[in-house]
């Protein structure tokens, strides 16, 4: 009852609804629209992979092996006659899942670390050195080393990449908290007796959302590239499961006879990452015009 009443009242609160906000965003920065459309296409392809795939991604058809792109197999087949289009569609599931899971956990962990650092100078000195230390490793090399210890699996890829990308979020949150905590409206909130927890949740966190959202978009892109690289190198998701990096690595052996095995899943990576970067750039320009690359 109460929730419904609130929902009815909110749009008249002077705040734009989600639809209106989205429309304004796309209108102001057209790249946001382009990014969103391509991403939606990739997400739908992943979601409906079983319906869209012309073949079972694992079904073998040895007579049709290393078949070039044709009507029956638009992306061609691999050395076991498996359909590359179907495998690429199913690969989208893994790639997106890893990208989103890494973003969610790295962002959550980064917000916690960033809030602690931004509000507690003592913890800040220690934790930020730790974050700097983690950022001194090349992303992919640290992820490879972690995978060596954790063992190859989708869950461990998510764990390793989340660890690698947490400091990036933590830095952004810490920076935003330090700026916002010095604002007058925070003093005002404190003056009227708001608790520290309320100030953090209602003022600091809400106002630092923009840079975090932008960073999260880029982290999804990094994580998808990272997963592809790990699986390509054979230390990521086991090769039985179709992933974009895994299919490319498999095609490496047949580069002469069947270049299409590697070409198509790679194009899928480029398309997804490109749309995420467009989205991130557009959001940054839209949410904070001062940061814009002039």
């Amino acid at each position: 009852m109460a929730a419904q009443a609130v929902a009815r009242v909110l749009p008249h609160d002077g705040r734009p609804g989600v639809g209106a906000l989205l429309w304004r965003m796309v209108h102001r920065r057209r790249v946001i629209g382009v990014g969103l459309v391509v991403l939606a296409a990739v997400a739908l392809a992943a979601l409906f992979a079983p319906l869209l795939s012309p073949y079972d991604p694992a079904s073998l058809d040895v007579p049709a092996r290393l078949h070039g792109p044709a009507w029956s197999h638009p992306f061609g087949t691999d050395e076991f006659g498996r359909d590359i289009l179907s495998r690429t569609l199913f690969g989208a599931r893994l790639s997106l899942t890893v990208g989103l899971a890494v973003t969610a956990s790295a962002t959550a962990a980064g917000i916690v670390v960033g809030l602690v650092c931004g509000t507690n100078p003592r913890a800040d000195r220690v934790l930020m050195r730790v974050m700097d230390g983690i950022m001194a490793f090349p992303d992919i090399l640290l992820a490879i080393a972690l995978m060596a210890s954790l063992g190859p699996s989708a869950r461990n890829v998510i764990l390793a990449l989340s660890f690698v990308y947490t400091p990036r979020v933590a830095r952004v949150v810490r920076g935003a908290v330090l700026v916002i905590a010095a604002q007058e409206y925070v003093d005002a909130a404190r003056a009227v007796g708001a608790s520290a927890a309320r100030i953090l949740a209602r003022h600091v966190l809400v106002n630092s959302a923009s840079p975090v959202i932008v960073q999260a978009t880029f982290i999804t892109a990094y994580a998808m590239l990272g997963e592809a690289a790990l699986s390509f190198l054979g230390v990521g998701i086991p090769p039985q499961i179709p992933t974009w990096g895994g299919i490319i690595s498999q095609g490496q052996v047949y580069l002469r006879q069947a270049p299409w095995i590697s070409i198509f899943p790679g194009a899928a990576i480029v398309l997804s990452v490109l749309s995420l970067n467009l989205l991130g750039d557009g959001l940054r320009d839209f949410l904070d015009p001062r940061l814009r690359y002039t």
Partner: protein
Amino acid sequence: MLGYLIGRLFALLPVLLVVAVVVFMLVHVTPGDPARVLLGQDATEPQVAALRHDLGLDRPLPVQFTLWLGRALHGDLGTSLFLRMPVSRDIVQHLGPTVTLSVFGLGVALLIGIPVGVVSAVFRNSWLDQLSLALAMLGAAVPSFWLGLSLIILFAVDLGWLPSSGYQSPASGLWLSAQYLVLPAIALGVPNSSLIIRFTRSSLLDVLGNDYIRTARAKGLRGRAVVFRHALRNALVPILTVVGLTFAALMGGAVVTENVFSLPGIGQLVVSSVLRRDYPVIQGVVLMVATAYVVINLAVDLLYFAVDPRVRY
């Protein structure tokens, strides 16, 4: 100056300590007993216990860490479990191709990044600018390993102009070496050029907004002279920072690229060590690369003194 240098060196210590702790913990986050993992499932219990004792795994963690760090500081990174030779020697043997590839890759990234960034800034908001930024965007989205494979398909398989894989050190003839390095260097350089394009552009735009640029134009200098003699020289200083920061991406990219082109470098060493579960080698490589990153970025900051006399701390 000297005070600043000493301060910076001291600030490095906690970061390097964190690096060391992370590297040390790599072996200890393995599910189960590292000694068991190292020996495999067939090993008998006494064998496992003996290795655990040899590796010092039966001692408390802080003791293990101190001993390990002490040895690492003396250049002793342990012994490879697979090749049975000192890890430091293993790394040195594989360093050549990686360093050569990184230098060539950085060269490609700068050769693309600076001119494209300059064009983009000079013709700001034109279609050339849009095109340059689109190129930067595309470059950042292309995985280096896929670009590498595509280059192999085009230039090695279809056209047959260049070898598809392998390595010849520059010592065995520059021309021969370059033939093997061109494709890997492009595969590594293109994704890394996008940050340089963007940095060059914004740095040059900053400089072009200065009064002395207006003065130069007012006294009648041609556009080209203003850009190259006055603006670019000043704009290049911040780009140094990007070169330092690119080092991490460059090393990471090199690790992946080497595996595409079968270059016998650090990247091949580390990936084959992961597959063999040769932890001391992995630890050694990761420790060395992270330390190099920290030191190189300090060196880049110090280079500012040499390049820009206005910088004083």
